[in-house]
């Protein structure tokens, strides 16, 4: 699997993501600077977590307009796969590559603890490592993870099977319909708030996040 990780000023989970991708594929991902305007030959582009541009405007709003985002958009339009985690998910919604928005957590506080996620469908490259209905643990670390969209959009997402993950033990940040992650209409773009990349090593407390990365590798080998 040829993966690339986009690094914006303020990105801070790029190393975690690189460890997870390399652990699954045996191949170090390319690190892509936000000012670049073209992508190398890739199967997957990942927008990792962090505080791009400090998240001082709105989370992800500045990064969505970075030079590299035009190349990422073109890559997706050509059928490339894009994964956005946490700040990466926020950037994808700000770039309107995924529907909805991530608002301040309902409790108005940063949340950093493990949550349980339920896999809503397992027939995508991002979720093929699980079975539908599986639950897994993932660390959360965000202040703006409260997924919001208008009711029509939410109904459409549900109807089209575009909810990727839901919070399975309560709804820690107040997300609409407990949505933790969504797909684009062609299922080639996926965004989620929690961090599967931080749970891929038994030493760090478990390997619950590994099926995401193993599944991606399997998909791109075939």
């Amino acid at each position, binding site marked *: 699997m040829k993966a690339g990780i986009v690094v914006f*000023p*303020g990105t*801070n*989970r790029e*190393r*975690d993501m690189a*460890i*997870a991708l390399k652990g699954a594929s045996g191949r170090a991902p390319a690190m892509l600077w936000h000012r670049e305007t073209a992508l190398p030959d890739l199967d997957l582009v990942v927008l990792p*977590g*962090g*505080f791009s*541009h*400090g*998240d*001082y405007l709105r989370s992800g709003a500045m990064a969505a307009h970075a030079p590299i985002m035009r190349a990422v958009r073109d890559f997706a339009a050509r059928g490339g796969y894009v994964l956005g985690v946490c700040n990466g998910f926020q950037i994808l919604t700000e770039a309107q590559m995924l529907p909805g928005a991530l608002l301040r957590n309902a409790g108005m*506080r*940063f*949340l*950093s*603890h493990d949550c349980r996620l339920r896999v809503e469908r397992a027939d995508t490259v991002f979720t093929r490592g699980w079975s539908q209905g599986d639950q897994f643990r993932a*660390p959360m*670390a965000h*202040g703006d993870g409260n997924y919001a969209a208008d009711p029509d959009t939410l109904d459409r997402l549900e109807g089209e099977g575009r909810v990727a993950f839901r919070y399975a033990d309560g709804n820690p940040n107040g997300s609409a319909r407990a949505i933790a992650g969504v797909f684009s209409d062609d299922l080639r773009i996926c965004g989620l708030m929690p*961090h599967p*990349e*931080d749970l*891929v*090593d038994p*030493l*760090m*407390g478990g390997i619950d996040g590994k099926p995401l990365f193993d599944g991606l590798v399997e998909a791109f080998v075939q």
Partner: protein
Amino acid sequence: MKTVDQGLAREFGLTADEYAKLLGIMGRTPSLTELGIFSVMWSEHCSYKSSRVWLKTLPTTAPWVIHGPGENAGVVDIGQGLAAIFKMESHNHPSFIEPYQGAATGVGGILRDVFTMGARPVANLNALRFGSPENPNTRRIVDGVVRGVGGYGNCVGVPTVGGEINFHPSYDGNPLVNAMTVGVARQDRIFLSAAAGIGNPVVYVGSRTGRDGIHGATMASAEFDEDAQAKRPTVQVGDPFVEKLLIEACLELMATDAIVAIQDMGAAGLTSSSVEMAGKGGVGIDLDLDAVPQRETGMTAYEMMLSESQERMLIVIRPDRADMARAIFDKWELDFAVIGHLTDTGHIVVRHQGRVEADIPLAPLADEAPLYRRPTAPSPAPAPLGAMHDPVGIEDALVTLIGCPDIASRAWVWDQYDSTVGGQTVRRPGAADAAVVRIEDTTLGLALTTDCTPRYVAADARLGGAQAVAEAWRNLTAVGARPLAVTDNLNFGNPEKPEVMGQFADAIAGMGEACRALDFPVVSGNVSLYNETRQPDGSTVSILPTPAIGGLGVLEDAGSAIGIGLKDGQELVLLGATAGALGQSLWLREIHGREDGAPPSLDLAAERRTGDFVRERILSGAVSACHDLSDGGLLVGIAEMAMAGEVGIKLDVPASGISPHAYWFGEDQGRYLLCVDDAAGLIERARRAGIEARPLGRTGGDGLTLPSGATISLARLRTAHRAFFPALMDR
């Protein structure tokens, strides 16, 4: 323009004697800028004038110490060619005035102390002390400090993995925020601050300079009065995003051979960084303030030299690498300006708009800095506690203690700190006695803790100082780590009061004894004095003396670290002697409402023997969980292990001859609980090593069953344990 005279010098915090000394060095009346430079460099905060004579008595060396006190942070050898670089620093006064920014910039400042030496920061911890939960102000301060610590640490992407929190009315008007950062560097890539190379350019990088934080160091060197809020303009404002860029840009530059010397602009900003870098290098420095990147217009030389704007660094650079360095900072969108050069004059010369605003000889500024051996007065020895009756019974006392402010679950706080970023956090907050972080691309683990029991220090400073060190050493041992070194953050009251100075001197004496006995040298630290609040009636309230100890240990294999959670179907064994010491215990405070008696005694030889034995057993693989005993004593420790492991225990304890409440809640030191398969084997080994050991019972079930047969369910304990913070903060 203000007239510079002794009156203004007094306003700037200089005594008449200090001002006379200044005049002697200068041979003339100083300019306002010069007076400002002297006043901050000779402030308690920068000069350690009251504490230096005592700090010198601490042990600071060991074969594994690479750099002890005197650099920006301490550096120790952790093997495989790597070094751990770490320090703890206070931001107490700003955190009372403006809790969010005070705490946030505390985190930012200590991060810079560590990455300025070439280390990538890998973990943050913080030792926090707040006022009484009943004080209406406490909630606001806890909220702001926790948001500030999280707001900064989460954004820069350094995991916050541990720390401690106490509540006590003595901190009502003076909370303590002690932030610790740990970083890792290659031993052949450690950067120091001594400037060298006459003519070499002096480069300013990072945020622009504004009028924030002017005279912050002076503010930190005086007690608070009722007008504390009027000091808000002296509090700095942090920008963690710029800090993150600065970390990445500096580490990128540090991978080259461009840097001669580097130092962050912390307290007293441009003044202290330029004076210290040139002073340590024995060179002079010329600064051209017109070249300083400024965020406001019309700033004077005085304002620029004393500004404590955050996220700034000063670098002496090889001239032939300046263009390459500038390109790195351009990439990270940070200001980069050559603002001066090194000279052979031995003076700092500051020019602004064509005028020389300051011209000070550096050697006397450092060498003749005030140094005080202030009078000390002994504190009265605490009266021994007589026999105490048990008014509530063991069950109720346990439930009360497990939910009391100093023991209750800190999850409400930790849940606001990103503890997993970096993907190397092996033991998260609360899961073990020390946090454990793996060093990326190695098997090495760092174990980290902060510790102090201020009520012990208040009762007996010498014992309390030693206990804080021993407790840190114990917490590192309890995860299986080899304790290496200490950073200390000494928070005390007004040093001009003999009884406070006596506490300070005694606490350091105790710390030194423990550090020597445990081979656990002090490699960095910070002193915060004048932690007092003047009341409207003119009296002052001093904090409990709080020498916070940050401990660092290493594990060859991070995977060998263990936590505190009990495992099902095993035996629990107590190591160390139990006498039932209730003086200064939390049981005494929470059940009887009394804070008196002598704190539990400390036997450093037994401490060493027991700890070394525990560590050896953990590394042999024979121990599945370990917890040292501290606040609340034996039964609280057992309950914490049971809750963490979600496994109960049936306690079956041989008669001890000690009354039950003293047995279960006494805070005797040097003790550990070990969860093992083979209790008899462990006890036999312990006896051979000269260590007292007792079986406590078999794990299993979902409650704590006391020898009386009464069972306290884990659910009840958990409810009590988790209630305090949400009840205080979310109402």
